[in-house]
């Protein structure tokens, strides 16, 4: 049997330095020749590819341990350096040590008492904080203190100033210190003084920071590749080691032959360069070592560092099996908990099924079907069988029967996905926890993943080519955990603002609007067609019996509401009249639900929408996830039924307005232009009255913006008079499905002023925006006012101005995403190990307290109502019914939408025009 579970626990990890003795001791062989292979292609003994260092070619055995390719992890070798060389990674420490110790006696430049005091302080802080970072500050402080002494308190020697010539040269008052001299000095530092500096002399002597032996990594770390042409291509690290060996050899020969000091020193420095770049090829101050082709070599530090490095790319970001990725598409007939998985994916993603006495027959039968059973519909098969001894057998059509025979308890059968399996579904960027949710599988034909449209908002998905990932769960624990914690229905309320993130969007909202808007009535045939999709619903008594049986939309919607639901709120189509007529509202915007019956009002974005749906919010709180899921599923089908019944389309003719209205808009534009010119005239004549706190120019700009803003609004109003609720675009805007009335007035009326940084356009040419205008022109056309609508078409200059305004929006979004992405990365790294413990405290993995009570009030934002633990108004309403409503009405709650801020509060406030423009452009950009 395979052993699972935790058998050992790591209590601590200690990092230390390798001593030259250790390097030689762990070495499998000494490396002396720079050549790798001989003429016959065999590795040279004591060369860089020595077979003692491990095996990379299949079939061969390691000369050190005798194991085969994947069994032997490789063995280190070593190079004995002719002369000592400084290790770049320790330059800072070496500098600190040289500066804080005596040049002649090697003692720390502190008196015994001072040193003891520092040690005492550090022990104390370690005891109090348990934090190595805090104590490292003390070590740094003591080193700094010692460095500032000019004479040694022990032998009274005068200290000279030591400087570091980056990256690896030390100088004493300008005189160069060779690595050999540095090493001698470090050797003199007594063990006792190292403790003060935060170094444990038991595992780490400072002279080891100056290398005399260099470890050579095993060949498995730097495998050579054989190209198609038969040539060998070596790893960058091997190339670098060849350089080191060559220079080391020459240095040794020259030194032994008694070559002039100058030549030896040059070679010594060259060796230092090669060893420095061997560790880090991006050391500042020296040119990076290059490949023959001119590409900088990727040496040790480069392998680890950065996004493509070992840590972020291979350790934090592992590739996984049992995952699938494909294009997504919508399917309103699926439950929000489900995901449609194509057959081809379902046959690749398997679930391990542990064979027991009880399922043995079933497992055998399944196994016998092989990896691709045919038949009417989808029949799950088996890809692999894992025997009790851990051997994995691939099932093929040929061996299926035989393997099935041998299946017994203790085997694991990897079966295909079937309907109802729990899997994880994900869309990048995974910005919040709702980006990965658990779904139930529905195996379907065709090649896309399909899911309910209500789940688009949490994934931020649309169907313009988006792809998503799916992960098959491989253990019972994982499946149970996913089902309880990660299922879609558990995430209807967002922990960000306590409102629904899963809810109706676009046509789903339009559909429920058309279903429930005042006067909606459906014949028997229409009603049945809508209800047949929503199973388990019986046809109710018709609202009107004569002359023909008719059912009202409100009546049909009430059928899916729970029987004890009471709610009162204003719908999205509400005009915010001065005095609300409540139930008598002519827009049918006052929603009243009593005992699960929709008495008045229209069901639109405010009731069902993602982020805003009040009904969803209340149901999720009061009835629990199962009930809301059922409600959302049924509402989806009903709304889709309603919109298909009537048919819904929008086109460019939705923005048609009568020619009379067009003339009115043109007039308004001419008026505005004249008025602007009037202001400019007044300004030029010096008659303009200055506003307090503004310069004359600013006053003029403010006045002009005011006039032009009003002109755009007037145009919108004129156009709006001809855009009624019979217009599809207006329906969408009013019920909150897509677009806004501002978008419509820009399409039908006028686009209005374009702005960059909240001001009218002014830059481009000398004192003018375009050469079409005179220098210094301040008029409306010259500064980016667009009097045309998107429908009527823009003039060339207007088009250019519009592009200028649009560009700002694009740049803003680009900058914002990159900046917030980096901020989020930092935040996640800081908070990744923080969790709420059972006693309500918030702690990290070290058990350190972050908060004594979660959020200082123990309120879970997901279950809180607008930040309060109890929604008092709701309780009053439920208990007192209509009577309570009077009390609630007195303090009409300011709940407009949940956690949605239309405006970025951190941006400097700009004029209304540019804000709305930005909003529009963002809407348009999403489509791309």
């Amino acid at each position: 049997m395979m052993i699972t579970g935790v058998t050992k626990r790591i209590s601590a990890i200690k990092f230390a330095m390798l001593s030259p003795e250790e390097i030689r001791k762990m070495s499998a062989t000494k490396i002396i020749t720079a050549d790798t292979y001989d003429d016959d292609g065999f590795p040279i003994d004591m060369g860089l590819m020595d077979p003692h260092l491990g095996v990379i070619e299949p079939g061969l055995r390691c000369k050190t341990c005798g194991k085969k390719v994947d069994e032997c992890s490789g063995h280190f070798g070593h190079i004995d350096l002719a002369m000592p060389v400084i290790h770049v990674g320790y330059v800072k420490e070496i500098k600190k040590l040289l500066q804080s110790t005596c040049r002649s006696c090697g003692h720390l430049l502190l008196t015994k008492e001072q040193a003891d005091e520092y040690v005492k302080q550090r022990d104390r802080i370690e005891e109090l904080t348990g934090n190595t970072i805090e104590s490292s500050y003390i070590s740094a402080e003591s080193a700094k203190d010692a460095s500032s002494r000019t004479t040694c308190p022990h032998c009274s020697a005068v200290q000279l100033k030591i400087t570091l010539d980056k990256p690896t040269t030390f100088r004493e008052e300008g005189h160069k210190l060779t690595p050999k001299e540095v090493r001698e000095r470090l050797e003199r530092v007594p063990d006792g003084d190292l403790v003060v500096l935060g170094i444990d002399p038991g595992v780490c002597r400072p002279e080891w920071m100056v290398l005399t032996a260099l470890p050579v990594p095993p060949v498995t770390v730097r495998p050579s590749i054989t190209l198609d042409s038969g040539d060998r291509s070596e790893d960058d690290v091997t190339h670098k080691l060849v350089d080191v060996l060559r220079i080391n050899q020459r240095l040794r020969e020259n030194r032994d032959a008694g070559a002039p000091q100058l030549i030896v020193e040059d070679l010594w420095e060259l060796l230092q360069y090669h060893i420095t770049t061997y560790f880090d090829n991006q050391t500042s101050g020296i040119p990076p070592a290059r490949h023959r082709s001119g590409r900088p070599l990727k040496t040790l530090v480069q392998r680890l560092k950065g996004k493509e490095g070992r840590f972020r790319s291979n350790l934090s970001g592992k590739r996984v099996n049992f995952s699938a990725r494909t294009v997504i598409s919508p399917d309103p007939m699926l439950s929000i908990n489900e995901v449609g998985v194509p057959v081809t994916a379902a046959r690749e993603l398997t679930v391990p099924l542990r064979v027991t006495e009880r399922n043995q027959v079933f497992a055998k039968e399944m196994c016998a079907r092989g990896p691709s059973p045919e038949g009417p519909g989808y029949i799950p098969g088996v890809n692999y069988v894992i025997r009790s001894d851990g051997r994995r057998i691939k099932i093929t059509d040929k061996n299926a029967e035989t393997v099935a025979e041998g299946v017994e308890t203790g085997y694991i059968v990897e079966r295909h996905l079937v309907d109802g399996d729990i899997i994880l579904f994900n869309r990048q960027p995974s910005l919040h926890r709702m980006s990965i949710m658990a779904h139930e599988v529905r195996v379907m034909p065709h090649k896309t993943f399909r899911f309910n449209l209500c789940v688009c908002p949490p994934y931020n998905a649309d169907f313009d080519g988006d792809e998503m990932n799916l992960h098959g769960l491989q253990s019972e624990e994982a499946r149970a955990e996913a089902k309880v914690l990660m299922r879609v229905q558990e995430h209807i309320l967002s922990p960000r603002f306590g409102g629904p993130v899963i809810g109706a969007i676009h046509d789903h909202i339009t559909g429920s609007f058309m279903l429930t808007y005042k006067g909606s009535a459906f014949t028997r045939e229409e009603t049945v067609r809508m209800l047949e999709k929503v199973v388990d619903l019986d046809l109710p008594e018709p609202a009107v019996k004569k002359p023909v049986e008719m059912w009202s939309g409100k009546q049909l919607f009430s059928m899916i509401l729970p029987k004890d639901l009471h709610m009162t709120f204003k719908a999205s189509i509400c005009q915010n009249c001065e005095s609300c007529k409540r139930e008598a509202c002519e827009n049918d915007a006052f929603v009243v639900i009593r005992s699960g019956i929709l008495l008045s009002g229209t069901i639109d974005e405010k009731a069902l929408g993602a982020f805003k749906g009040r009904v969803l919010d209340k149901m999720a709180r009061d009835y629990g996830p199962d009930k809301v899921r059922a409600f959302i599923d049924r509402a989806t089908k009903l709304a889709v039924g309603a919109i298909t019944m009537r048919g819904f389309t929008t086109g460019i003719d939705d923005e048609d307005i009568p020619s009379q209205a067009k003339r009115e808009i043109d007039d308004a534009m001419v008026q505005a232009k004249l008025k602007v010119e009037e202001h400019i005239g007044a300004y030029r004549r010096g008659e303009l009255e200055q506003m307090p706190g503004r310069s004359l120019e600013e006053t003029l700009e403010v006045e002009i913006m005011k006039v032009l803003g009003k002109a755009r609004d007037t145009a919108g109003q004129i156009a709006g008079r001809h855009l009624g609720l019979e217009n599809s675009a207006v329906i969408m805007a009013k019920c909150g499905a897509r677009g806004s009335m501002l978008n419509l007035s820009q399409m039908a009326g006028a686009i209005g002023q374009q702005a960059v940084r909240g001001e009218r356009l002014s830059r481009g040419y000398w004192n003018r925006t375009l050469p079409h205008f005179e220098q210094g022109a301040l008029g409306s056309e010259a500064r980016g006012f667009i009097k045309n609508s998107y429908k009527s078409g823009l003039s060339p200059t207007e088009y250019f101005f519009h592009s200028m305004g649009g560009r700002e929006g694009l740049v803003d979004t680009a900058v914002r995403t990159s900046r917030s992405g980096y901020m989020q990365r930092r935040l996640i790294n800081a908070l990744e190990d923080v969790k709420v413990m059972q006693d309500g405290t918030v702690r990290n993995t070290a058990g350190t307290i972050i908060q004594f009570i979660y959020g200082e009030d123990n309120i879970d934002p997901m279950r809180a109502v607008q930040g309060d633990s109890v929604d008092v108004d709701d309780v009053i309403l439920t208990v007192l019914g209509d009577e309570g409503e009077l009390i609630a009405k007195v303090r009409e709650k300011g709940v407009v939408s949940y956690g949605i801020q239309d405006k970025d509060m951190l941006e400097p406030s700009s004029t209304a025009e540019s804000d709305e423009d930005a909003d529009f452009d963002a809407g348009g950009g999403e489509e791309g």
Partner: protein
Amino acid sequence: MLLVSTVPRLWGDFEMVEESNVLEHELVPEHYVMPEKEVGKVLKQYGLTKDQLPKIRLSDPCILTLDAISGPVEEGMIIRIVRRSATSGMAVCYRLVIRG
């Protein structure tokens, strides 16, 4: 009341805050030095060792003020901080004084 930080008088026309006590500022929560006896109780209540508490530095303006008002505050002492909370009325937390 002992006065801790001193802001120099700048203009005669304005009423300047000459001296202030940070603990009296409305945005600064209340700080108390915990008596030795209660320390053990709190640590036991949360099942903590001293090093797992959040920290506050000796150089913190609040600690300097406390030191001046109610006698020396030393490394290793525990400060009880009580702040107002919109949702729960009052929130209490404890911090360990460390050097610096």
